[in-house]
């Protein structure tokens, strides 16, 4: 599904912030991406999402060599990936409902075809009564759940979540993790970037990708 071969990344002429990164993410797998703050977790997720180009090495996404892809193909591949950003990235002028429905809307689908689905998911993540609200009025946890719902609404083959439980209480964090594990069971590969050890301990069978000193260490 995702394969990195000796990938390196540097900004400008600076030192490499990621060195010789090689790993693969197979279908229906669950992994945590962890490491200290500033280790490059978000950068690695952005490389997977093809929003950054590596300075060396090869990235393959769904069997495609990223270096050979045109923009339209990248767009098509991104539609198979759900992303939860650390800072939520909700659009402030859209309601919770509109934010969650956004990935379906950009695909040109008619609103009537996904309305029930979006409402159902919003209710599931506990935002059933907050769907008319603008993000500015939502709490941090509510924004987090809206961001997660937006990532899930397309039923992605691969879910990338950057610190998805960073702004929620332990109870909700457990519930969100249950959501991710259910998603994993339904066939989605999940990558959760976090440095929350408690969260990782709740899912002991998960693979751990640990970033440190610009390199990736894998613990299966």
């Amino acid at each position, binding site marked *: 599904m995702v394969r990195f071969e000796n990938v390196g990344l540097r900004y400008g002429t600076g030192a490499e912030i990621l060195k010789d990164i090689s790993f693969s993410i197979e279908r229906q797998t669950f992994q945590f991406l962890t490491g200290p703050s500033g280790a490059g977790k978000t950068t690695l997720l952005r490389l997977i*999402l093809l929003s950054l180009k590596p300075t060396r090495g090869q990235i393959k996404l769904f069997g495609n060599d990223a270096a050979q892809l045109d923009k339209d193909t990248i767009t098509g591949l991104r539609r198979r990936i759900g992303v939860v950003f650390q800072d939520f990235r909700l659009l402030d002028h859209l309601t919770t409902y509109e934010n969650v429905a956004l*990935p379906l809307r950009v695909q040109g689908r008619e609103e009537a075809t996904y309305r029930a689905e979006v409402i159902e998911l919003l*209710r599931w993540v506990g935002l059933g009564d907050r769907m008319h609200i603008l993000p500015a009025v939502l709490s941090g946890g509510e924004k987090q759940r809206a961001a997660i719902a937006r990532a899930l609404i*397309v039923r992605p083959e691969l879910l990338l979540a950057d610190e998805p439980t960073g702004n929620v209480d332990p109870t909700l964090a457990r519930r969100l993790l249950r959501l991710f594990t259910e*998603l994993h069971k339904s066939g989605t590969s999940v990558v959760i970037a976090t440095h929350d050890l408690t969260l990782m301990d709740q899912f002991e069978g998960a693979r751990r990708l640990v970033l440190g000193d610009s390199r990736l260490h894998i613990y299966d």
Partner: protein
Amino acid sequence: MSIHKLDLEQAEDDAEHAARHRHHLKRDMPLVPAVSIAGRALVTVIAIMTFLASLTAGAAMLIAETSQDWRQSISREMTIQVRPIVGRDLEADTAKAVEIAQGFPGIATVRAYTKTESEALLQPWLGAGLDLSELPVPRLIVLKLAPGTEFDAAGLQRMLSEKVAGATLDDHRLWLSRLAVMAKTVVVMAALIFSLVLVAMMLAVSFATRGAMAGNREIIEVLHFVGAADGFISRQFQSHFLRLGFRGGAIGGGTAIVVFFVLGTLSSWWRGTPAGDQIEAMFGTFGLQFKGYFLIVLVAAGIAVTTGLVSRIIVFRHLRGLS
């Protein structure tokens, strides 16, 4: 998706819930925020540009139509001038010229100015109350040509030269050519001003689009991440700027229509007064015909569409550049 099976009770009443929300959900908010200070400023700029472009187009049309009226009326009229020559009877020469003109094909009416009328023509320059009987004032004969017939001006000139000494035919060719040049100059100037206004407006839209993209960089990034194609994103900006363009175009074009309507009404009120007649003679009635108002609507719509297209092209190029 199995997550949706986790809570069966909730899932069962989803349809009912969806139906309840159907009429309350905000579903079609533009993805590019519609309200912004930059947006209002751009609407104002587009309104001003549309107003200026509409005024230019309307004024050019008025002058071109008036010039056309002038040329048509002048070209259907000619003048024979009979100069007094010592030893010849001016009245007899005038009568002879009238007789020749009346018998010439293509002439509908012939009217000779009397001696008194000819002298009255000099009043604006020499003043009233002078005895002009000693002055060699030429006599004028006005010919109106029959519409839809060929007229041989050279033939009439030749006949007059042969039979009436001192008679010349003035077919106003010089006036006509000057009027034609003036009308063409006005139209070219109007086209130039119109083009400049359009270029200025396109530049303003281009700056505004770049500003809007800079201000909405995060929105563009999110749209990319959730799988929006460049075409989709540029369409969002296009429709945003098209809306602004139509709003600005409607305000500018509407104001221009009101201005022309008020000027037309005022000029019709002034008709009959010396100043009003003078203005009407020079510039026409100021009243735009239907096609003039249609032209303004066309200009406003064209500017709105141009606004949308310019923004789409700039956004598309910018997005291509991002890759």
